[in-house]
């Protein structure tokens, strides 16, 4: 468990270094996710080393967003001033994105399956 956490934090640290060092607009933890993939694929890190820590974190992923969400209270005034465009655009757009993304993927998946047969 401890080894797993150490590996996760080390990869995040490496990701942060790359993100800041090269001024890449992708956050260090997302780069760290790529580095994890790379480390597993090359065999530098074994899945068993990180499985326990990873399972623990991922099964409680939602919890870690709560403090960020509470931060919304600081911007209540700003949101209150233009609530109509904000609420409608956020609501409708989120559903549009899900529909477009899902349908495009399904359509291509079906198309590909059709070609193979």
């Amino acid at each position, binding site marked *: 468990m401890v080894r797993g956490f150490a590996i996760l934090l080390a990869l995040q640290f490496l990701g942060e270094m790359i993100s800041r060092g090269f001024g890449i607009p992708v956050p260090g933890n997302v780069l760290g996710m790529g580095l*994890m993939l790379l480390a597993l694929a090359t065999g530098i890190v074994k899945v068993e080393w*990180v499985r326990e820590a990873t399972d623990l974190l991922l099964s409680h992923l939602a919890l870690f967003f709560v*403090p960020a969400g509470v931060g919304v209270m600081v911007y209540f005034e700003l949101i209150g001033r*233009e609530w109509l465009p*904000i609420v409608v*655009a956020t609501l409708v757009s989120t559903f549009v*994105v*899900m529909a477009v993304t*899902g349908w495009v993927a*399904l359509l291509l998946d079906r198309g590909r399956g059709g070609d193979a047969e």
Partner: protein
Amino acid sequence: MLNELLHSPLFGVGLTLLAYALGQKLYLRTGSIFFNPVAVSIVSIIVFLLILDIPYEVYAEGGQYVLFLLGPSVVALGVPLYTRRQEILARKGPILAGILAGSVSSVVSASGLAWLLGGSREVVLSLAPKSVTTPIAISIIEKIGGVAPLTAALVVLTGCLGAICGPEFCRLIGIRDLAAMGLAVGTASHGIGTARMLEIDRLGGAIAGLAIGLNGLATAFLLPLMFVFFR
């Protein structure tokens, strides 16, 4: 003495865990998607702080420790991506095309609707990266010139929305395949939606995690280009 304790991490961490535990209990009891644990925790903590007149900054002294774990959790998403790599690679075309279409439609529909409804320039711009994970959204907004704190708030609202009704909405419109559902929910509502997908299905959750990174990348590259025409 009470004031001293309020400013120790005990308060923020404790309140967060308590609210989340209660939120989860409520969710399991009622089985209703509207009692999403994240949304319930956020709302109840805000109400609690407002009633007792405790500023956000005091809560954040402990809250930041909980938030810290988000970093390694995103790194951890690399593990299910690796263990399910064959299924994901077999669908790389549909996955990439879906995310690209999602990224463009998010910017166009969010900013376009806000513009049509008479939103100010700062709101229109701040809405553009709302489907992108917070740290990427902030760096994008600094480039195109919106209001970073507003964008951060909109990203969280979008995430909660996707977590509360994403999977149900997908089923409603015929996206029942769990991989496609994960792709849709992750592209539309980043990490908070991904957390919900992970509860439903590990492969769907892994693909949602992949979508956080790829949608962030796609939007970071495409958005400044799209706004060249807007100016």
